[in-house]
């Protein structure tokens, strides 16, 4: 699949790298005991350390370290047993220390890889350059008062993982697939809730364009995108903007840009000349962060099965299409549901019922799998009734709709409504004889060579049976009687 973008003067290749900031799932902040939960009243989750009072010192929350290691392992990355926290110095009202504690030269996690799943069912590996731990800043609100700004320090000091990709993506769709897969892995691991609306996952997007085969072009960085749609919009806008400039003979400025969600466009935030000098240096309040090999091994051993592994099993062992497998494995809950529902059953049939009927109904009703009344056992029960011929696929759709609303077992619905498939050959033969007798003209036409009429007879029989006749048997007996 070619990702080239054609401009007025020829094709362009898009080069994208992402820096994703993922909020670490933890009770307390990275260097203070204050709560890291979302949604408290302003300035309620602020410790003396967060507010940077004189003489206050950071103490690492080791759970955040474990979460970073788990994430690194999930990205098949190198875990650095020794890493260093640095100070990134700049002044801002929502940065009480006057510096952010981050990891600059020696991150906790090194190179790894992320496999993305594309719409056509294919997959591609995207390189991970590094993952490091850092503190989040607070929140400034400039629109609450005509002349003052309000500061909320609740988020100050909350642990973030900055996950930096290699410039390996070649389209907005790949970038979206990358974020989707990364989010999926983080959620499987339980290291980040992936909630983009609440800001738990946000991306900085680096975009450049070049002629195929040439060196990298000058890139721009668009900051703080908090939805997959915005990521794609920002990339599409940047690609078009850059190509236009280059084709007009201009040059791209290496700069930081902001995305305007209302217009879907980006604009200059600061140019390279205005870039901060962060004066990084190792934080002298903290010793180098050391993790033991044993601890890493223990975390690795306790890691849950990840989407790629499950997907491989689904496509390989179970024979599902890559697309269905990707859809089912995106969320851990869905994958677990599928495993339970399909165990000992027709795997493909269960996958179909999940991706089409179940997901369709959930989408329509706005429910999540967690509050869905059709449990894995119930969906499995429905599939059992299809497989053993008790009901037809068509009847099953009605049964499913009932189950979705009522939460009943498939067997109970079938029993109550008398939807059991008629597989009694005598009864079916009787119905067929009736249909043949009532449509002698059509029978003659059929036997005269009008093959297409076969469907008409099937329809008539099914109608007579109220849809309950076993379609396979109807076919077989009809053919014998008409052709015989």
């Amino acid at each position: 699949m070619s990702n080239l973008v054609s401009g007025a003067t020829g094709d362009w290749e898009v080069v994208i790298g992402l820096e994703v900031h993922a909020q670490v799932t933890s009770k307390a902040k990275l260097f203070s005991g204050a709560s890291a939960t979302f949604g408290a009243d302003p300035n309620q989750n602020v410790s003396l350390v967060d507010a940077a009072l004189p003489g206050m010192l950071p103490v690492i929350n080791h759970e955040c370290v474990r979460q970073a290691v788990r994430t690194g392992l999930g990205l098949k990355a190198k875990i650095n047993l020794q890493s260093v926290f640095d100070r990134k110095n700049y002044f801002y009202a929502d940065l009480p220390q006057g510096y952010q504690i981050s990891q600059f030269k020696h991150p906790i996690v090194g190179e790894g890889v992320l496999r993305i799943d594309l719409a056509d069912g294919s997959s591609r590996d995207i390189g991970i350059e590094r993952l490091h731990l850092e503190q989040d800043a607070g929140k400034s609100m400039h629109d609450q008062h005509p002349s003052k700004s309000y500061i909320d320090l609740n988020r100050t000091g909350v642990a973030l993982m900055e996950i930096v990709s290699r410039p390996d993506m070649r389209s907005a769709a790949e970038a979206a697939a990358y974020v989707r897969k990364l989010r999926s892995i983080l959620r499987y691991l339980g290291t980040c809730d992936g909630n983009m609306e609440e800001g738990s996952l946000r991306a900085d997007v680096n975009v450049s364009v070049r002629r195929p085969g040439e060196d990298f072009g000058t890139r721009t960085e668009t900051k703080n995108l908090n939805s997959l749609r915005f990521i794609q919009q920002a990339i599409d806008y940047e690609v078009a903007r850059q190509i236009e400039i280059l084709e007009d003979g201009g040059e791209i400025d290496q700069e930081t840009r902001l995305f305007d969600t209302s217009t879907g466009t980006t604009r200059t935030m600061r140019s390279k000349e205005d870039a901060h000098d962060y004066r990084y240096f190792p934080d002298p309040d903290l010793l180098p962060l050391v993790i033991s090999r044993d601890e890493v091994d223990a975390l690795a051993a306790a890691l849950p099965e990840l989407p790629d592994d499950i997907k491989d099993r689904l496509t390989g062992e179970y024979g599902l299409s890559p697309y269905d497998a990707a859809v089912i494995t995106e969320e851990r809950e869905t994958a677990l549901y599928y495993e339970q529902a399909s165990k000992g059953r027709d795997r493909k049939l269960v996958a179909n019922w999940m991706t089409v009927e179940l997901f369709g109904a959930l989408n329509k009703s706005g429910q999540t799998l967690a509050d869905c009344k059709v449990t894995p056992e119930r969906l499995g029960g429905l599939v059992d009734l299809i497989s053993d011929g008790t009901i037809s696929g068509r009847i099953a759709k009605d049964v499913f709709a009932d189950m979705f609303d009522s939460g009943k077992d498939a067997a109970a619905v079938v029993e109550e409504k008398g939807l059991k498939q008629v597989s009694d050959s005598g009864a079916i033969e009787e119905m067929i004889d009736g249909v043949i007798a009532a449509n002698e003209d059509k029978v003659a036409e059929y036997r005269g060579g009008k093959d297409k009429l076969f469907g008409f007879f099937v329809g008539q029989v099914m109608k007579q049976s109220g849809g309950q006749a076993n379609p396979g048997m109807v076919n077989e007996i009809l053919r014998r009687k008409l052709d015989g």
Partner: protein
Amino acid sequence: MTDLLELGAVEARAALAARDVSAVELASAYIAAAEETASQNHYVAMTAERALEMAAQSDARLAKGEGGLIEGLPVGVKDLFCTAGYASTACSHILDGFTPTYESTVTANLWREGGVMIGKLNCDEFAMGSANETSHYGPVINPWRGKDGLDLVPGGSSGGSAAAVAARSALLATGTDTGGSIRQPAAFCGVVGLKPTYGRCSRYGIVAFASSLDQAGPFSRNVADNALMMQAMAGFDEKDSTSANVPLQDLTKAVGQGVKGMKIGIPSEYVMDGMDPDVVTLWQQGQDWLKAAGAELVEISLPHTKYALPAYYIIAPAEASSNLARYDGVRYGLRVEADTLDEMYAKTRAAGFGEEVQRRIMIGTYVLSAGYYDAYYLKAQRVRRLIRDDFDTVFRTVDAILTPATPTAAFAVGRKVDDPVTNFLNDVFTVPANLAGLPGMVVPAGLNGEGLPLGLQLLGRPFDEATLYAAGQVLEDSAGFTATPTGRAGGQS
């Protein structure tokens, strides 16, 4: 009352236990002494009410036969330590009125062991200075005077602490030492000061100057008193990530163990131009005393010593420039209002920081900036490593090192204030221990021709304060240093 001021800490503790004196009497004597010496500006704030309250509680415990290591003993606290409910300003205008809700670990330890807080002691602004002349609250006057009768500096940055202990306005005092800020004023004021091994005393609740160098320590009139206070204030603290979980030795026991069989290193590099000849003489005298007491003297070389000062004046300002970024007028302390955030920062920090602090912030910002980091900060860190290696090497053969404490005795107030580089040279013998994280003790050992006190410095292996107390006691005994300053409470002037 004057008699009470003559008791050292160990003596006073015994007298309290025997109920010969009460803690309230002792506290009252020191409060009166502080008032008497108020013109020397030791204290930036007295906490007399609190002192009497704490003393009364001490008396109650002592009456029951209970009490901590320093139960009922009056302690002055350098203003760099945060004390809950009492203004803690690091003697800076920018922390005007800042009153913490929390207590530093070191002072909390002292109060837990029964210490009685007399007040907050003057110091250089943010501990930046070697003469206690950069304090927002004015200079401290050394209780000692030379023959010319000029007001002398007490040294710095813990100038108030050293002067108070010398002048008897505090029995014990806390200090902090980043490049010599305990040891140099101890030498200038004729008292004992210890800079413990980095990590021995928690930095939690102490206003930070240079985090990788700052270390709190005790001031006292003699070595045994110093060991008692150190025993009370030190200890592992999980609130400070650089605190060392190494068990503290029995320091009070170490005092009096002598130096028999000990190997004492004499570094050939600890001489410099402009050194007071009396200092050289005293250093030789110190070697003779230790030898006479049974120690073996070993000539050693610490070849990178001359690079210590330049490295220090890169690393300390670099860390300070970042540590002091939090004083921005947004949340506490001074704020000078302005139309924009950047203007508010600039005006607040220009008004709130004194000249020396601004100088070091600018130096620190410069050496960390892009393009200069490698040449300055990184190189200084490499030098630091080499200095540590120098010490590691010699400590394979010697148990402690004897050096002069300072190149000269105390100088006149105002004499060096306009010459930062000369001021920096005060720290030439003390800075290496901070860079290497080693313990260092200064013991008063004699007077120069002007009648001003001079000190000797002992440096030890990491976490081996015990050897310093043993050797320090030998120096003290041999020197028989009994002179007291004219400016002391109950004294002549």
